[in-house]
């Protein structure tokens, strides 16, 4: 049955208020970086996965933990190390004794079966374990001993990684990087934010997070986001941006041709459009605009560009190239 206009308006208003409530609750613990929080919430409501990158001590893990607390959802944390096995992530069959005294294999669910999974320092896990996340992230199911187990919705993996300590790490392969909806970078907080952090963490009063959203609300929000409209012209902007990240494309700026080996995949365009729709709803609109597309382009594209030898040698950042693509596209 098609909902009435009033119902949709009420849902949209609920979406906006929930978003702002969640943001406020996260703000009780996580100081500053409001744009980062917005992007994380967008990713969460779009049911995407995020790769959060930042130096140690900047609050990456705290941010995800706070989100899981504010949203009354099942949360699991996986601390990735080189000896972490795929079964530690997905779960495995264990031998149990039934009430009748018989022994049988029972599937013991791993941490991946939570609604929000924090894969801390994911680049420290071996490629084999990283691959265990692949099926879960894309297919939203895991297969153990030939049996496929679907994951509950909503499901988001928030992985963190430290860009500095590269020794003993296994950089994520391109295929896995592409499965992340957004790559978010946590910057060093300013003095004002730092002072606030000190006040909250070294004093008597500790920030407390209240429950701002439940499972059903999150599910209905995802449905609402997908209903948001997008004009062909706006979609063309998103597709042009993605296309312009390919060095062989006519739309590509000189920087892309010079430093990029492979550009973003169609999955990047999906991420951009979905996030733009969510952003439109938050802004009180029922259609995505070009402005929304441009706002989400950097987190959606920056981890999907594979730099060539020159780019690596000259330490060109993918973010700067995406910004260049955006600047070129706006002139066109």
């Amino acid at each position, binding site marked *: 049955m098609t909902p009435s*206009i009033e119902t949709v308006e009420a849902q949209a208003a609920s979406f906006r208020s929930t978003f702002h409530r969640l943001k406020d609750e996260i703000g009780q613990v996580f100081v500053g970086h409001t744009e980062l929080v917005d992007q994380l919430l967008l990713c969460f409501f779009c049911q995407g996965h995020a790769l959060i990158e930042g130096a140690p001590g900047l609050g990456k893990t705290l941010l995800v933990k706070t989100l899981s607390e504010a949203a009354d959802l099942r949360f699991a944390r996986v601390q990735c190390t080189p000896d972490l096995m795929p079964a530690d992530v997905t779960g495995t069959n264990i031998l149990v004794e039934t009430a009748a005294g018989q022994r049988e294999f029972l599937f013991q669910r791993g941490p991946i079966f939570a609604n929000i999974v924090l894969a801390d320092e994911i680049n420290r896990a071996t490629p084999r374990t990283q691959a265990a996340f692949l099926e879960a992230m894309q297919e939203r199911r895991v297969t153990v001993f030939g049996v496929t187990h679907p994951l509950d919705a909503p499901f988001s993996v928030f992985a963190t990684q430290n860009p500095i300590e590269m020794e003993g790490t296994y950089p994520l392969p391109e295929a896995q990087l592409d499965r992340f909806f957004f790559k978010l970078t946590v910057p060093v907080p300013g003095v004002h934010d730092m002072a606030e952090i000190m006040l909250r963490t070294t004093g008597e009063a500790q920030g407390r997070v209240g429950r701002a959203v439940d499972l059903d609300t999150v599910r209905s929000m995802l449905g609402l986001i997908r209903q948001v*409209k997008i004009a062909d012209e706006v979609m063309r902007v998103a597709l042009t941006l993605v296309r312009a990240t390919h060095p062989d494309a006519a739309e590509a700026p000189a920087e892309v041709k010079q430093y990029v080996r492979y550009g973003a995949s169609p999955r990047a365009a999906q991420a951009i459009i979905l996030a733009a729709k969510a952003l439109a709803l938050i802004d009180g*609109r*029922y259609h*995505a*605009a*070009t402005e929304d597309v441009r706002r989400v382009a950097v987190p959606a594209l920056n981890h999907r560009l594979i730099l060539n030898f020159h780019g690596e040698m000259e330490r060109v950042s993918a973010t700067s190239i995406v910004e260049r693509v955006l600047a070129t596209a706006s002139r066109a």
Partner: protein
Amino acid sequence: MTGSTATAGILQTVARCRRRMQVVSAARRAAVAVPVAIVTVELLALILRLPAIDTVAITAAASALAVIAAAIPSIVRAPSLRETAAAIDARVQLQDRTVTALQLDGRVDPIAQLVVRDAGARLAGLIPKRAFPLEAPLYFRPVLGASGAITVAWLAIIAAPGSSWFIARDAANAAAGPGMGRSSRAAKSGANTQAAEDSSERAPSVAPGQASVRTEAKREETPVGHETTRNDADKQGRGSEGSQPTSAPSPAATPGRDTGRAAGTSDTGRGATGFAHRMASAAGGVSGGDSASIDGALNHAASAPHDAAYSDKYRVASARAEAAIAQERVPPRLRTYVRRYFVAIHP
């Protein structure tokens, strides 16, 4: 506001904005095309030495043509409704509301209706004139500045005392009378014809003593004010080269060239040419009635028969001409002109 009303309102507004965009586009093109047309005509007028009155008329016509040419692309390549909607969104910062609403026209799902309603409400108060004001196009100021400068320069040139435009007009008027056209080639030709006929009528009765008086009287018509003064000795030298017409760099020696130019004046049959005709007639040389006959004589000179009668006639005429210009107080330029004439018709 219902969905269909909102859609109709949106379509109406977009259509109005499209018309406005066409007008603005045409005006912007015309703002560049008209100065360019004016400058082009003025430059052509300077190069071709067109008379002022003709130039003004041609400029007006070119401007009108430029306006029409500027309007044609706006009519032929009118923006589509979607393009207009996108332009409205960009101009009024509607965040793609209009273009999305147009795309969702006819859809019945609640989100689509909300989008259309929202766009309709935003577009309700839109005034196309404010959304698309007349703005100066790119490079308008440089184009306008350049065209203004060229126009001023052109006006200064044609208004300068002694300017060939005015001389041409005055000479034509003086010769043709008030009823004749002031600047057209036909008028000038007519004036010359009349002047030449006048001189040819008088020529036989002119005695050497009287010629001085008449030349003095006619000198006032002579356009010497803006002509380049040459060294008389040099001209004498050139005159002595009359027996070698092919080696002399005389413009008049070239078939089809303007004999007026050969004398340093700018137009055929004006004051200088008339004077030369009279001189030639007075000398009993080969003289036509007008510039066409001079050209004919020059052409004839190129293929002149080397018969004795012509040579004799030439010798007598050139001697008389030399004697005349040696005795009379003739402006140096015109001496050269007469000498070159005889060089040109040298057998």
